[in-house]
C-alpha cells in the first residue's frame, strides 16, 4: 500500500515537472517565432561622396562669358544642377558654395578634404569669344605622382592622388564623348585642386563645338548645360560602380 502511494506521488510530481517544462518550451518557441529572423550579414556599402566646387563667387567673378554672363554664376548653376542629378541617383554630394558667396581657396580645400570624397570636381567656364578653345576641358593636377605619406604638404596634397585623378579624368572623358561632346584633356596647376586629397579634376566648360569646328551651342544654352550636367552625373555613377568593384 505504501509502495503504491509512493509510485503515484512520484508520477504525479513527474507530470507536474513535465507540464512546466512543456509550457516553458512552448513559451520560448512562441517568443522565438515572434522575433524577426536575424539579418543576413552583408558587406557594408562603402560611403560614396562627391565634392562639387563651383569656382569663384562673391567679388571674384571669374571670367566674363558671352551675353555678360559671369563665370561664377555659370559654375553655381551647374553645381546646383549636378547636385540634384547626383542626389537623385543616391550619391551624397558636398558643395563648397550654395550661393554667390566668396569662399577662399583654402576653405574650399578644407571642405573637400573633410568630406573624404571619392571624387572632387572643380567647375569652371570660359568663353573667349573668338570661337577657339571650344568644348569641355578636363584638367588633372600637373604634380608628379607621389606615394601617400602620413603628413602631407598642403600645397601638394594632390600628388598622392594624381593617379586616381587621371583615372577619374578618363571616366569623365568617356562619358562626355559618349554624349557627343568635344573633350580636351590636360594637366594644370590650380591652387585648389593641388591641395585636394581626393581624386580631383577641374572641368572647364566652353561653348560646344559643332562638326564644322564652330560654335554649336553657347554657354547660355539650357540644353547644352543640361547635357553637360547629365554627362558628368553619368560619369560619376560609372566612377562609383568602378570604385565598388573589388
Amino acid at each position, binding site marked *: 500500500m505504501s509502495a503504491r502511494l509512493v509510485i503515484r506521488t512520484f508520477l504525479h510530481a513527474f507530470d507536474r515537472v513535465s507540464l512546466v517544462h512543456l509550457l516553458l518550451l512552448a513559451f520560448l518557441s512562441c517568443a522565438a517565432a515572434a522575433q524577426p529572423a536575424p539579418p543576413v550579414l552583408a558587406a557594408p556599402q562603402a560611403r560614396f561622396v562627391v565634392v562639387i566646387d563651383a569656382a569663384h563667387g562673391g567679388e571674384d567673378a571669374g571670367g566674363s562669358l558671352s551675353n555678360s554672363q559671369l563665370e561664377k554664376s555659370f559654375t553655381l548653376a551647374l553645381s546646383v544642377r549636378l547636385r540634384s542629378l547626383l542626389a537623385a541617383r543616391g550619391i551624397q554630394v558636398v558643395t563648397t558654395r550654395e550661393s554667390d558667396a566668396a569662399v577662399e581657396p583654402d576653405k574650399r580645400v578644407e571642405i573637400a578634404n573633410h568630406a573624404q570624397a571619392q571624387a572632387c570636381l572643380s567647375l569652371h567656364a570660359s568663353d573667349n569669344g573668338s570661337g577657339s*578653345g571650344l568644348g569641355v576641358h578636363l584638367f588633372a593636377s600637373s604634380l608628379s605622382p607621389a606615394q601617400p605619406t602620413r603628413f602631407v604638404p598642403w600645397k601638394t596634397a594632390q600628388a598622392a592622388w594624381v593617379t586616381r585623378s587621371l583615372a577619374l579624368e578618363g571616366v569623365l572623358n568617356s562619358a562626355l564623348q559618349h554624349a557627343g561632346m568635344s573633350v580636351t584633356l590636360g594637366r594644370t596647376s590650380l*591652387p585648389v585642386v593641388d591641395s585636394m586629397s581626393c581624386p580631383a579634376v577641374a572641368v572647364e566648360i566652353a561653348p560646344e563645338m559643332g562638326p564644322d569646328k564652330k560654335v554649336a551651342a553657347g554657354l547660355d544654352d539650357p540644353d547644352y548645360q543640361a547635357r553637360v550636367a547629365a554627362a558628368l552625373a553619368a560619369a560619376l555613377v560609372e566612377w562609383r560602380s568602378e570604385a565598388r568593384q573589388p
Partner: protein
Amino acid sequence: MIPRHQKLLFGILLLASLVMGVTLWQLRERAHKRLIAGQDSAPTRAPEVAPAEQATLLVANDSDSSMRTQIHSLPLPADPGSRARAVLGKLLDLYAAPDAAHPVPGGGSSVLQVFLLPVPEIGAGAAASVKPKSAESSSAEFRANKSGAAPREQPQTGPQLAVVNLTGSFAASHPSGIETETLTVLSICGTLHANQPRITQVRFLVDGQTRATLAGHADLTRTYLAGDAVPAEGTQP
C-alpha cells in the same frame, strides 16, 4: 596817411628788388650757356646692335590646345638674363598680334625682367623633384663654409631658376580661363628651357610681387619645372 619818407623808402626797395631779380636771371642764363658750351654732345660711338640669332619659341594655339615650336630670327644680347627677356618679348609679341592663335594683350613690354639664379638646394613648392645634391658635394661645401671661405661663386654649368617678372597690366588683361592661362605659363616655361637648357625651373612675379594666380586660375606661387613644359611637337600640355 602814410608819411612821405616811407613812400620813398618803399619805392626804393621795390626798385632794388626788381633790379636784383633781373640780375639773377641774367646770371642764370650765362651759367646755362657756359654749361652747354662745355659739353660735347656729338655722337662718338655707334649703338650696338646684337647680331640676329635663331630663337626657338613654343607658341600656344587655343584652337587645339597645343604648343608648336617656331624658329624666329631676332637680335639677342649676350647677357643670359637679357637674352631670356628678349626671347619672351618676342613670344608675347606674337600673342599680341591681331591674328594670334593664342590672343593675349600686352606684347613684349610685358616682361619687365628675367632673373637667372642657381637652383636652390631645397626645392620649393611643387619643384620637389629636383635631384638632391650628392653627399660628397654637400660635405665639400660644408667644409668650405666652415673654414670661412668666401661664398661660392655662381656655377656656370648648373641648373638655373628663372624668375620672370611680368607687368601688372599683362596679368590684369590676360583672358581668364584654365586653358588659356595654362598655355601662357607653359609656353613661357618651355620657351625659356628651349633656348637656355640650363633653365630648369621657372617662377613668376607680377610687378615684383608674388601673385596667387595669373588671371584667376593658373597658380603663380609654385615653381614650374621648365623641362616638363616642353611637349612633343603639337601635343597638348
